[in-house]
């Protein structure tokens, strides 16, 4: 570990333009490529403050600052292009959260890292539209919020209500949303509007431990806790009318539902199991990293292959999970409005994954290469005409869903050609934490948070109200700063802004 003064550290950082900084080689040992991160003025301050704090003598905090972590990732074997920090970047386990990195599949040294995906495999966001408007919902807002809360199991220790046994789980892990479709929980067109059509084909449930399956079974179809939520939102602003139209968003005031959740205990256990087995593989294959938390294995090693297959199973779990909650949401709306979900036009606009590793084709130094792209707290944002995005969005670019924090706004962006070139078609994922949970608890009163939400006309149903301040907007970076940075830097384009009117969370 290099120990330097803050001023010396800064010499390795160069501001390329108002939205983008370069991390030069040498900032951390063995950097094979440079790092880069995207921030505007307020986010830049947070980012550099984190670095300065870590330079203080006697700092023995838990994680390295995000900018150091980006540089450590740049030192991993097989990395190509740059190690990239998105505007919502903050320090995480091994990789920073909001960090993406791509590894050459044809380089035998290249690695796959569970830390580059995160514990919550295929955590993501799904957006449903309706043909309702704010005025239709306001009179029944409280009832609707309560009904959603009653339908969707939330918080620690809650169990799924979709009937499942061990055999069903095996099938769901293999089939992803094809399972949900076969069982009648979703509509055929839902799949079209999901990354990978809601199913990773290389999933192999046989590679997953019994432990993970046992943790996963009772939790399928549950929202979870922490920053996960289901929100009823209304369209606040439309920046790109044409693209919004393609998504079925006609005008301001239209009601949507956003679901933010992942693969629950199943994914967490898959990640834990992989970290344990990779520690051994690293010793065997002499893989050196700058940080013990960057556990990884060669892509072609048995550990690497097993992880990719079990990660794919966890990704399928997450899609089935979000699909099950989509089903429950449609039921709640149908009962409230006494209309079929069809007649309410409750289509999935899109479903994004922001904790995942995928094999993709990209152009590196003018040549097409097959890469293993890790996105941790980062969303895929493919440009118009890309073959992997659905036909409905071929002309607009892929919709990118950015969930805000509780009570703030969320955004829909679209992918751009520039993002494809600069960031391997990746952009931010949300707000990103700014305050620690303990600090939030000390500084903010939960009653105050609930009152503020009420004052801004947001109904809230929460399983653990005493912890609500941990998720208060003050604990996070400003999502508008994050999104504006992505827009200004050109790595994705603003399309729609959404404002919550009801929040359901753990």
């Amino acid at each position: 570990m290099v120990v330097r003064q803050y001023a010396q550290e800064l010499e390795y950082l160069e501001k390329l333009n108002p939205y983008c900084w370069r991390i030069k080689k040498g900032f951390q040992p063995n950097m094979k490529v440079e790092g880069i991160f995207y921030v505007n003025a307020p986010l830049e301050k947070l980012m550099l403050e984190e670095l300065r704090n870590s330079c203080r003598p006697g700092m023995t905090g838990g994680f390295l600052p995000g900018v150091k972590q980006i540089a450590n990732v740049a030192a991993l074997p097989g990395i190509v292009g740059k190690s990239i920090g998105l505007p919502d970047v903050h320090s995480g386990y091994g990789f920073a959260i909001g960090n993406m990195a791509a590894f050459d599949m044809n380089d035998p040294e290249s690695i796959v890292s569970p830390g580059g995906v995160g514990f919550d495999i295929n955590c993501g966001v799904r957006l449903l539209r309706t043909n309702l408007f704010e005025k239709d919902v306001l009179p029944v807002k409280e009832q609707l919020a309560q009904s959603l809360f009653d339908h969707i199991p939330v918080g620690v220790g809650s169990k799924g209500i979709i009937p499942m046994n061990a055999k069903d789980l095996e099938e769901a892990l293999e089939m992803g949303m094809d399972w949900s479709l076969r069982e009648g929980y979703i509509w055929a067109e839902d799949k079209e509007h999901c990354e990978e059509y809601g199913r990773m084909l290389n999933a192999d449930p046989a590679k997953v431990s019994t432990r993970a399956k046992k943790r996963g079974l009772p939790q399928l179809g549950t929202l979870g806790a922490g920053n996960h939520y289901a929100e009823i939102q209304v369209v606040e602003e439309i920046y790109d009318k044409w693209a919004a139209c393609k998504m079925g968003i006609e005008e301001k005031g239209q009601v949507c539902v956003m679901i933010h959740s992942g693969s629950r205990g199943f994914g967490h256990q898959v990640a834990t199991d992989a970290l344990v087995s990779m520690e051994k593989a690293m010793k065997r294959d002499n893989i050196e990293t700058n940080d013990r938390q960057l556990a990884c294995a060669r892509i072609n090693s048995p550990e690497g292959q097993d992880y990719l297959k079990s990660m794919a199973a966890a990704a399928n779990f997450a899609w089935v999970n979000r699909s099950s909650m989509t089903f429950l949401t449609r039921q709640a709306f149908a009962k409230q409005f006494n209309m079929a979900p069809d007649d309410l036009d409750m289509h999935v606009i899109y479903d994004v994954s922001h904790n995942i590793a995928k094999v993709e084709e990209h152009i590196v130094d003018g040549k097409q290469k097959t890469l293993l792209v890790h996105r941790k707290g980062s969303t895929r944002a493919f440009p118009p005409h890309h073959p992997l995005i659905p036909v409905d969005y071929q002309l607009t670019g892929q919709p990118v869903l950015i969930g805000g924090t509780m009570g703030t706004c969320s955004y829909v962006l679209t992918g751009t050609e520039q993002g494809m070139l600069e960031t391997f078609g990746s952009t931010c994922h949300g707000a990103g934490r700014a305050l620690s949970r303990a600090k939030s608890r000390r500084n903010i009163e939960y009653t105050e948070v609930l009152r503020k939400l009420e004052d801004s006309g947001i109904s809230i149903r929460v399983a653990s109200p005493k912890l609500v301040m941990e998720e208060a907007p003050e604990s996070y970076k400003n999502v508008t700063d994050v999104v504006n940075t992505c827009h200004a830097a050109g790595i994705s384009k603003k399309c729609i802004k959404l404002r919550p009117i009801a929040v359901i969370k753990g």
Partner: protein
Amino acid sequence: MSDSEDYENKPQEEFTAEELILPPCKYEYLDHTADVQIHAWGDSLIEAFEQCGVAMYGYMTEIDKVEILRSTEIEVKGSDLTNLLFMFLDELLYVFSAEEFLVCKKLVITEFNVNPPEGEDLSIKCKCYGEEFTLGKHPQGTEVKAITYASMQIINEPEKNKFEVFVIIDI
């Protein structure tokens, strides 16, 4: 919802008076940006481990709402001391998340084998006392996703009577 009167509170097995004595609280939660760091201590390394486990349950619910109605026994192995602590907490998380859904108020390590013969694993046997997590009776705290090795520290200094552990849990 009123107090626990609404629930069945009958012990599902017999406990001795000693088993029902509750340990003092020797843990705290430290500041950390995205996650939470547990700091636990005790008069022996065994006690520090036990306290660390209870601290994790304390983040999931309010421990004083938990009663001792059931118990289970776990056994874990580890390649070194940090790995052993990791596996111990991972097992406790599993006990909570699957099948038994047990939330524990008290942990008693009955076997603590940390100096095994060369080439053999370290091991722990632990008796876990608590009850099934029940919505309505037990307030929902934060979900623990996983145990991490991040800045894991085990201070084992018998000469100074200093036994402490630091663990970051991912939430």
